[in-house]
């Protein structure tokens, strides 16, 4: 009824190949973006700082991995380390050149992880499938080792950890202890929206089609004139760029200082979960995946004790934690069985249903 494409005619190719050809989609998107900005003024600090900022950071990292795994079909388990490269690069840059605005360095730091990502992407020309996944583990463990072993990366801090010195934007602190969750959230939100917009243009354009061709069958793509090496390396570079920026945001705008351990193998797995549960080859799926995998445990942590409370059972924190693990594990299996193409597919089905509503088909 409300959501239909009937009557919207496209008269130019440009209009037809737009990312959101439907007016309703554009309106919906605008509402969501407005709502997200409004949340900065409505939400309390727990919601912003512990739920929304990490959710956005993880969404960005998931978009990065989705470009590599979902669009180009190259499985990577080194996401955590690539995020780390971005964070360490950003730290070095912003302490070496404190005069330049830190937002610039957040965007620039991504290029460093892009370079490292492309370097570790080189074997992808020969190695495929799970073999490649294990090869990216080499990147994960090697880079993690570098983070600990090279004190230069943390400016010889005795603690061996990254810290977040005060940095401002228009005179308002955005990094450092005095930055309010609200400003942090607005900065993260803006960066994520900009980068998502760029990503959506990339994957819907020529480059994205090249990636998809490589994913579907690289041999056939090669015969069609797509250069596999360049295309795969580009995917690695772009993917790592996104992960790198996400890593910088994670350390400086969310944690406000972190140890190398934040970028461990579990982080890589965590983001892979998001991509697969959200839907391979779907940008919106990355957001869904991040929401489900990151926010669900938090909600469970709050809801589970509340569920047992009325029965007079107080459940210990560790039992909650165990139940969280079990439920998340069971839900992963459940979602894979119900919808192996991820939440993004459910979203599509929902849209399809909306189009024909109130009729069954």
């Amino acid at each position, binding site marked *: 009824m409300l959501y239909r494409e009937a009557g919207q005619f496209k008269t130019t190719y440009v209009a037809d190949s737009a990312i959101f050809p439907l007016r309703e989609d554009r309106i919906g998107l605008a509402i969501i973006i407005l709502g997200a900005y409004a949340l900065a003024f409505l939400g309390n600090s727990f919601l912003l700082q512990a739920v929304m900022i990490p959710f956005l950071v993880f969404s960005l990292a998931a978009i990065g991995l989705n470009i590599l795994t979902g669009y180009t079909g190259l499985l990577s388990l080194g996401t955590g380390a690539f995020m780390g490269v971005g964070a360490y690069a950003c730290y070095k840059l912003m302490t070496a050149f404190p005069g330049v605005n830190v937002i610039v360095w957040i965007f620039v730091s991504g290029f460093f992880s892009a370079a490292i990502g492309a370097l570790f992407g080189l*074997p992808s020309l020969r*190695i495929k*499938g*799970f073999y490649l996944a*294990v*090869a990216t583990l080499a990147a994960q463990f090697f880079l993690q080792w570098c983070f600990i072993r090279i004190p230069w990366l943390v400016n010889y801090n005795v603690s061996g950890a990254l810290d977040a010195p005060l940095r401002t934007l228009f005179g308002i602190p955005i990094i450092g202890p005095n930055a309010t969750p609200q400003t942090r959230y607005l900065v993260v939100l803006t960066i994520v929206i900009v980068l998502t917009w760029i990503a959506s243009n990339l994957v819907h354009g020529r480059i994205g089609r090249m990636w998809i061709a490589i994913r579907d069958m690289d041999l056939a793509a090669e015969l069609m004139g797509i250069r596999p090496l360049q295309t795969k390396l580009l995917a690695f570079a772009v993917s790592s760029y996104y992960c790198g920026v996400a890593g910088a945001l994670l350390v400086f705008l969310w944690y406000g200082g972190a140890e190398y351990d934040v970028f461990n193998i579990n982080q890589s797995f965590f983001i892979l979960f998001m991509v697969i549960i959200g839907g391979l080859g779907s940008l919106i799926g990355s957001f869904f995946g991040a929401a489900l995998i990151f926010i669900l445990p938090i909600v469970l942590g709050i809801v589970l004790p509340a569920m047992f409370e009325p029965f007079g059972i107080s459940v210990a924190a560790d039992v909650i934690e165990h*139940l969280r693990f*079990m439920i998340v594990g069971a839900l992963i299996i459940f979602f894979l069985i119900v919808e192996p193409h991820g939440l993004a597919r459910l979203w599509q089905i929902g849209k399809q249903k909306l189009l024909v509503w109130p009729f069954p088909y």
Partner: protein
Amino acid sequence: MIDMLFKVFIEPFLFMVEAPDLLIQTLWEGLVSGVLYALIALGFVLIFKASGVFNFAQGIMVVFAALILVGLYEKGVPAFLALILAALAMLVLAMVVERVVLRPLVNQPDIILFMATFGLTYFLIGFGELIFGGSPREMITDQLFLPQGTTEIDAFGGSIRFQHLDIAAAIIASIMIGLLAVFFSKTRIGRALRAVADSHKAALSVGISLNQIWVIVWFAAGIVALVAGIMWGARSGVSFSLQIIALKALPVLILGGFTSIPGAIIGGLIIGIGEKIGEFYWGPLVGGGVETWLAYVIALLFLLYRPQGLFGEKIIERI
């Protein structure tokens, strides 16, 4: 510069010749860890061969099996009964996994099945900690008649120490591998397994029950996990951090090829010995701790030469 080259290319070898006792000791330690890595990798290979599932949960299965064994013993069950019960628990796990995870996901892409085993891992971590708690436990070595002591052999101007436990681990692992080989080549079920590995459809059409085969391979992998759990547990205690060590089985796998049992063994030995030698002779040059990534880099180098692993089936691509 020259000094640097000398330290990298000459000094370690000089040291090997100078102190052959340490070289042999290093090789032995590498051999033992290689065998233990291979044991974990074996579980992966069994499942991958028969069902095409890259079973990430193998690591937690190792911990889980060992915890059941120790947990039951602590509850007062005699050691050998506990061993049998732990094996039965692995059978139950195999049946549940087949019914709940594999059957509904049949014919899905590999990566989906891989993710499903991630879900299984999470579930088992939570479930295991809920039942047994998170504290590390001691493996019941004496009760299982595992030897404990050390033999010290004086040779090459020094001494070489052999742990009886390590010798036992090597022997038990060899027996396991031998049994599996016999099982695969001589028994009816083994032949059926090989048929399934070759082609699911062809196997189905001659009347082999896929579901049954899956239960059997997961059970076999569970038994391998139990043995690996006992051995690792005896070496360093049973705790959930053992699960992380299982990641070391991954380079072993890619080195050996996902589908080859001898590949898992030889891959395990190459990785085990390679990383110990690397850490021992070259690690100090860069501040140590290279062991964490060396295995993956070794595997990566081999892969560049042979993308399907040493013993993997040759990948033939057609359009």
